[in-house]
C-alpha cells in the first residue's frame, strides 16, 4: 500500500476515534474488501465472513481510540482485528470447510519456498528468518498466519502426528525469535 494511502487511513481512524461517522463510512469503503478477503480466506465460508465483517467494523468503531499510528499502520491494525475475530470464531467451532487442505497436501512445501524467495526481495526480517527454517516448518507458520490452520489441520495436511507437529513448531518458533532478535 502506498505511503500516502497509509497516512490517509491513519487520519481517518483518528477521525473515527473522535466520533466521526462520515470518516467511519469512508474507512469502511476503503478497507472492507481487504477485511473481507482476510475473513473469507480464514473462515472459507461466505455467510460467516459476512457476519464477521460486521463484527470487525463494530470493533473498529469501538477500538479506534486505542489505535496508535506510531506503533502500526492502520491496515496492519485492521488485519490484526480481522484475523483475531476470524480465529476466535473458527476455534470455537469443531469443524470448518476443508476444501483448501486437499490442494495443499501435494506439494505445499515446494510452493512455500518460492513464496519466501519472493518475500525475501523485500529484505525483511521475517522472510529471511523463515527461509532459515526447514521448509515444512516455515510452510506451517505461513499456513497458520494466512489461512488460520490449527495444529490439527497442520497435522492432517502433513500426515504427521499432532504432538510431533506441535513440538517441532515450538522449537522453530523459538529459533525464529532468536534469528529476528539478532537481525534487529
Amino acid at each position, binding site marked *: 500500500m502506498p505511503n500516502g494511502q497509509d497516512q490517509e487511513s491513519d487520519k481517518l481512524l483518528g477521525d473515527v476515534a473522535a466520533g466521526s461517522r462520515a470518516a467511519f463510512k469512508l474507512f469502511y469503503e476503503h478497507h472492507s*474488501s481487504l477485511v*473481507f478477503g482476510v475473513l473469507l480466506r480464514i473462515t472459507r465460508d461466505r455467510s460467516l465472513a459476512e457476519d464477521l465483517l460486521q463484527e470487525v467494523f463494530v470493533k473498529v468503531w469501538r477500538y479506534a481510540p486505542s489505535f496508535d499510528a506510531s506503533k502500526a499502520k492502520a491496515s*496492519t491494525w485492521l*488485519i490484526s482485528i480481522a484475523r*483475531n475475530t476470524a480465529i476466535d470464531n473458527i*476455534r470455537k467451532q469443531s469443524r470448518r470447510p476443508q476444501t483448501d487442505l486437499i490442494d495443499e497436501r501435494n506439494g505445499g512445501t515446494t510452493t512455500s519456498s518460492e*513464496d519466501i524467495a519472493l518475500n525475501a526481495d523485500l529484505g525483511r526480517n521475517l522472510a529471511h528468518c523463515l527461509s532459515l527454517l526447514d521448509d515444512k516448518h516455515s510452510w506451517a507458520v505461513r499456513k497458520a498466519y494466512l489461512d488460520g490452520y490449527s495444529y490439527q489441520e497442520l497435522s492432517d495436511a502433513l500426515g504427521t502426528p499432532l504432538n510431533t507437529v506441535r513440538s517441532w513448531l515450538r522449537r522453530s518458533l523459538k529459533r525464529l525469535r532468536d534469528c529476528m532478535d539478532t537481525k534487529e
Partner: protein
Amino acid sequence: MTDQTDDIALAAEYSLGLLDGNARDAFAARISSDPTLAAMVDDWDAQFSELNGEFETVQAPNVMPQIEQQLFGQTRRPLLERLFAGVALWKLALLGVLALVLVKAILLITLN
C-alpha cells in the same frame, strides 16, 4: 529460563492463532494482566504482519446499514420506506383488494 522461552513460543502460537479454545482464552487472560507477555505478542504480531501483503482483497457486501443499526440504533431510511415501515406487503395488497370491492359495490348500487 525455561519459562521465558516457553512464553516466547506460547506468545507466537497465540499470535498465529494456533492455540485452541481454552488455551487461547487462558492465554488472553494472562496477557491482560502481564505487560511483558503483551509486549511479546505485540512483537510477534508486528513480525508476522510482514506476511500481510499476501492477503487479497475480495469485493465486500455493503453491511454498513447493519453496522450502523448495531452501533447507533436506528439508521435514517428514505421517507417512503419510513412511511411504510412495519407495513407488510400483504397488508397493502389486502387494502387494495378491499378498496376494489368497495368501488365495485358503490358502482353496482349507483348503476341499479
